[in-house]
């Protein structure tokens, strides 16, 4: 075998060797446990702290708001839909929650949209329905019909 071919084969052998070592060292532990992805990823995602804590935990302290809310049409909405994730606020009340007062908040759900059924969610034409005023001057966000 000619010398240059021998050298080349040697280089290829070294290259493949290095790749194999790297593959051995760097391949994540649980790769291919269930398929071509990291099996551990499922556990890692599951163990992340939940950022949303559900409306029941808000009711512990904000019982009056929870109560008026439970009387209105927004009964089924999570508080955190409008106020943002609450995991920090629940532990530390000084951590401010978001309070959004602009109309875009309400219009996210109530704007005219051909794709969502009108009998399930009421929709208004944002341009015609009391243009130029804030929704919350007439509707209480916690109990829209006051």
């Amino acid at each position, binding site marked *: 075998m*000619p010398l240059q071919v021998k050298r080349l084969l040697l280089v290829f052998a070294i290259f493949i060797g290095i790749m194999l070592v790297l593959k051995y060292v760097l391949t994540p532990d649980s790769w291919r446990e269930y398929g071509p992805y990291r099996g551990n990823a499922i556990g890692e995602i599951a163990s992340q702290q939940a950022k949303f804590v559900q409306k029941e935990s808000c009711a512990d302290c904000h019982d009056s708001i929870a109560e008026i809310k439970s009387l209105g049409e927004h009964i089924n909405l999570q508080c955190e839909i409008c106020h943002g994730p609450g995991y920090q606020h629940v532990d530390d009340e000084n951590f401010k929650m978001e309070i959004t007062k602009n109309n875009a908040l309400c219009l996210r759900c109530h704007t005219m949209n051909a794709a969502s059924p009108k009998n399930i969610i009421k929709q208004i034409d944002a341009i015609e329905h009391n243009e130029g005023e804030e929704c919350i001057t007439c509707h209480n966000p916690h109990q829209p019909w006051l």
Partner: protein
Amino acid sequence: MDKIQSLYEALTKVDGFIYPNELALNWDMLIVMYPYITGLVAGAFILASLNRVFDIKALRPTYELSLLTALSFMLVATMPLITHLGQPLRFYEMLITPHLTSAMAIFGFVYLWYLMVVLLLEIWFDYRYDMVIWSREKKGFMKFFYKALTLWVSDTSPESRKTDEKIGYFITVVGIPSAFLLHGYVGFIFGSIKANPWWSTVMMPVIFLFSAMVSGIALVMFIYMVVTYLRKQKIDMNALDTIAKYLFYILIIDFTLESLDQIHRIYEADESFDILKILVRGKLFFTFFIMQIGVGVVIPLATLGFLQFKKPRVRIRKLIYWIISICVLVGIFYMRWNVVIGGQLFSKSFYGFTSYKVNLIGGSDVTLSLLWFIVPFFILAFLLWLLPPWKKAPPIEIPED
């Protein structure tokens, strides 16, 4: 991908009815660059093999140049993908967890085979003798560098050169199907998506392949002219005419295949045809009819066809070739654009369109695409400095027996 602030803003991008996940294009301009650059590699390589395997002597002056061009574009071919994914630091995970279960994952194998086994080896065998000679002439670091490149083999005997020649020839022979594989593969990625009528056709790999050849040949033609100009050398008109001739032939095949595909579509006129018709006449009018067909095909075909019969003076011919090579390069870019972007503009409900705006300033996709198109030219400049084809020893004659 662009961020959409509100439903109202989103609706301004939409015509008719579309599904929510079709609003923003997931594959932006970087994915246009990917088949474009890979195509340039495959095309440049095939031009080199025309000289070596099919023994077209006139193409000899561009042999090394085409190989080095192919290599410099090959080195960045994956970059558009990696930057588009947005996790460049995880790229190595792809290499250490190979698997055969997805068409996309096969690219790792195709790429590695083509780069390591075909391009690098062919260039190495081609330059081995010269690198030994250069390592003797140079001093200091460069001496060491060339020595390292030769893998410390300093054999310059005629036998060793003959071995180089034979192995190099063998690799080129293997390289042709590999180049076909490389770009056929890229076409397959699009052609195999059955949910998208604009992409889903068995012709796609073949069309991609021929358009790759067209663009690669045009690129080498362009680079050859620029490099000889910068070196203040006389250009080999015979080589240039031959390249132009092959460009002409392959452009004809490419255009025929593409027309065949379109005619087939038009005649079949299945349920997707109406929307594709509106797409091509509307949103793709400029990029399809004007850029891809007009600039990329009609002008070059007419000019090159004319040149086959009547040859004007050298100076004018040079200018024509130079302009034609740019036209073809632009045309093929828009061909990739029409495939990648066009395929995402219409709704798979066939009832509506979304739109795609390139933000020229501040758009990361455009900036990065430009970057990945410019970097190969710098790599090429470096390679030409390191391995100048014009300083090579004349090839050794192998007696026929």
